[in-house]
């Protein structure tokens, strides 16, 4: 699983492999942990500030109360 997620992260999978892998990400917390870890490694390698301080979880919390608005264009806001 981890090797496939590594390939997915780099968009190096075949077209027909994408959907099952995104299902895996959706349904398995371990896969999401792995996704998080690999993004963190990539960002740290690129020299970005990486802290495991719950930043993304605070964004998720805010997003829980937000809906997609069909006529809203964020670039015109």
């Amino acid at each position, binding site marked *: 699983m981890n090797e496939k997620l*590594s390939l997915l992260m780099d968009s*190096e999978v075949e077209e027909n492999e994408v959907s099952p892998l995104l299902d895996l990400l959706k349904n398995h917390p371990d896969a*999401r942990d792995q996704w*998080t870890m690999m993004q963190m490694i990539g960002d*740290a*390698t690129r*020299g970005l500030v990486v802290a495991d301080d719950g930043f993304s979880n605070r964004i998720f919390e805010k*997003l829980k109360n937000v809906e*997609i*608005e069909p006529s809203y264009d964020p670039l015109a806001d």
Partner: protein
Amino acid sequence: MFSSALQFDATQLPTTVTKKRLNSVLMDNKTEPAKQLDAARKPDVDLELVSRAQNGDRLAFNALVVRHQRRLANAISRFIRIPQEVEDVTQEAFIKAYRGLKSFRGDSSFSTWLHRIGVNTAKNYLVAQKRKLPAHRLKGEEDDTDWQETSLAGANIEDPERLLMTQQIGQAVAAAMETLPENERTALTLRELDGESYESIAEIMGCPVGTVRSRIFRAREHVAKALKPLLEPNRNRRW
């Protein structure tokens, strides 16, 4: 000739997403021909995640947040220097992106679209606060392709605990990279730092693409093993 061959192929491609990806690649005249071909052949995971999120899959959008949060925050930090404000504006940019997800049609990459939202949000924030753009931002440097990343050394981190955590993670990654076999370190560096495709890396390193896959995966597993002890205390932050 190269471009016209690709344009001809574009009319034969089966999915809208693939056509958009190929058109996006063709419109990006900074992309080298070899990379254009590589990118055209491969599915774009961001577009696939956006497509799912547009259809109500919130976890798909969360996966995009995890993927882009630091680069977005980094871009915003070039306009706004106070860390808490950078976090607030980054959150606002993601919220705007989610609200307006239907307006994203794949004409540019998701990364570029999100970056534009982030820059606009940062500028609006400064206007609302009646503050000026940083001097270097007044010279037209804030264009949409400005994704240049700043180093940890240049980061403005006020919270001592966060600074320590950031340093520990940075040091653990650097130490793990040092102990990697040379060919694994090279493959991972070419991928993460230079953004090379696996095919390009295979060409550069003179090995099959399958070997590149294994090297990059093994390198990530090695670094992940070094990072896990630092992250274990925060396992309750699963999403």
